């Protein structure tokens, strides 16, 4: 059951400047572990609530790849029992218990909720169990945003992390792309082609209010929020070719951070304020890093002839990206501490990676649908969406 690890060999690199320190190792993890995880039984919740809470919890835990719900009647180290019945001050009283090997109680909680909060409560229970058993923060209560299209319309959709409860917060007759969550989870920046030209728009998720942030001639693309939520980096080509800009949202004055004849695009911020972006200044698209105010760029990627669309883990240690080799596109990850470069997916048309807020999973599009892979490549996860989905972004834990 161990992952298949292929060493692609050590590659001594001719590096520039102060990056001449690493001999990156390429490891391909092409197979995950299936059917493994901590065994748990989850009894059906009695009480007649309109949602199958036990079913939602089982699906949430199954999806983590680290906890394995067992069929009813089987033996397991851990067991969950619960009830959801009319009562309490808001409509439903939901109780659940998590017990260990000899029936020792580990969790015993109750929630007083209105009927429309039964699904969120089920996700909350999943996260409480997951955190108790693994020590990691769970993702069941988080959300994703993605773009769907069909029949001449484009949709910006916000859904729960299990793909359920989709909400179309923007519908357009022109393309929408590159959604990006603000660090507090309250806003989405995106590119909209309404009026048949690209603009960067910031939309308040809860009020629906929109604000045009950039509508310069040429490309207005790839918005990315600074960690403090007060600045946006993006791409403009108003001066002839695509360059990286940073905009202070309060003062509205964009500052240009790159300058050259190459394509510079897809900026993302690291926690220290520096910016990683895609550039073809070396002849093929690769990732580079500049300081908060621009300046000399350091090349970060050297594997293959195409590394683009960086995304940064919440702790700033890992950069996931789109990686091409042999004509196929993969999701790969670079560890900025060890310089290790790993390919995580089996490849094809993989694109648009985005880290989950716990840094453990990466959601992406494989060209047909949304899927996710764990940072170690072991866990794969599919999203049960209606229809197509692309450009996925995992929401932060939020307020």
């Amino acid at each position: 059951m161990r992952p298949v690890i292929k060493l692609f060999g050590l590659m001594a690199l001719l590096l520039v400047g102060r990056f001449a320190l690493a001999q990156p190792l390429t490891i391909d993890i092409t197979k995950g572990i299936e059917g493994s995880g901590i065994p748990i039984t989850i009894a059906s919740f009695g009480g007649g609530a309109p949602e199958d809470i036990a079913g939602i919890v089982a699906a949430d835990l199954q999806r983590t790849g680290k906890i394995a719900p067992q069929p009813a009647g089987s033996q397991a180290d851990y067991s969950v029992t619960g009830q959801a019945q009319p009562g309490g001050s808001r409509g439903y009283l939901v109780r659940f218990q998590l017990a260990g090997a000899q029936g020792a109680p580990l969790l015993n909680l109750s929630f007083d909720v209105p009927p429309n909060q039964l699904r969120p409560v089920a996700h909350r229970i999943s996260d409480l169990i997951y955190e108790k058993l693994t020590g990691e923060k769970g993702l069941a209560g988080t959300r994703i945003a993605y773009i769907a299209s069909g029949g001449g319309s484009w949709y910006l959709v916000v859904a729960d992390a299990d793909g359920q409860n989709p909400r179309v917060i923007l519908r357009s007759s022109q393309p929408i792309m590159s959604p990006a969550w603000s660090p507090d989870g309250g806003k989405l920046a995106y590119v909209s082609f309404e009026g048949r030209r690209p603009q960067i728009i910031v939309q308040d998720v809860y009020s629906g209010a929109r604000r045009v942030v950039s509508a310069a001639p040429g490309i207005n693309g790839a918005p990315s929020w600074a960690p403090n939520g007060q600045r946006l980096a993006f791409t403009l080509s108003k001066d002839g070719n695509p360059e990286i800009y940073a905009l202070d949202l309060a003062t509205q004055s964009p500052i240009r951070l790159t300058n050259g004849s190459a394509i510079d695009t897809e900026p993302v911020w690291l926690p220290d304020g520096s910016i990683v972006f895609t550039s073809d200044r070396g002849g093929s698209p690769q990732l580079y890093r500049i300081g908060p105010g621009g300046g000399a760029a350091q090349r970060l990627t050297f594997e293959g002839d195409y590394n683009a669309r960086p995304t940064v883990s919440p702790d700033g240690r890992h950069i996931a990206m789109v990686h091409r080799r042999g004509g196929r596109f993969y999701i790969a990850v670079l560890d900025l501490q060890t310089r290790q470069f790993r390919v995580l997916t089996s490849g094809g048309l993989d694109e648009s990676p985005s880290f989950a807020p716990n840094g453990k999973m990466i959601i992406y599009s494989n060209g047909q649908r949304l899927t996710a892979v764990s940072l170690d490549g072991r866990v794969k996860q599919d999203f049960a969406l209606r229809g197509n989905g692309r450009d996925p972004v995992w929401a932060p834990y939020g307020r």
Partner: protein
Amino acid sequence: MQNIIRNLIAAAALALMAGCASTGDTTGEEQTADQQDATAEQGITAQPGQDAYSYPYGQAPSQYDTFDTTGGATASGGQAVQAVASSGGAVSADRIIYFGFDSSEIPSESQAVISANARALTGNARIVTQLEGHTDERGSREYNIALGERRANAVRQAMIATGVSPQQIRIVSYGEERPAAAGQSEQSYALNRRVEIVY
């Protein structure tokens, strides 16, 4: 052909639905106009005949059309190239320049297309054209926006070289967002790597 007709019917039906919706469905629109914060601009959401409607999360519809434009039909039906219903309408072949993989070099066989359109532009200085750059679906979406713009710029330069005024040319890149052909075949990809000359 059947596919094209089916797509056109689907597009027409959706346009009808959208038409109905925009009268009864102004909740989101008015909400956004009423609840804007001090920094929000009103222009975009208030345009008549607007393209986009936003909704507050709590009132956002859960239904959306999922007519698959990503090649699902091709996956089950072999290599047939399927036309995509494009809201922009079909551009005739004498206004399209096709490109090689990863290339923004104008093929020699497309010079005639550029010359003919350049003549039309130099013949009437009041005509303005929009050059729309496109790529196939492979690779990063935003990087493809940049590649599509590079293709449109190559056509722009070629037109300017034959005497067209830069003021008569506008550029927009859609990257891989508006494919001309669905499906994941080399044939579809070749049809999608293009610049459309739109008047």
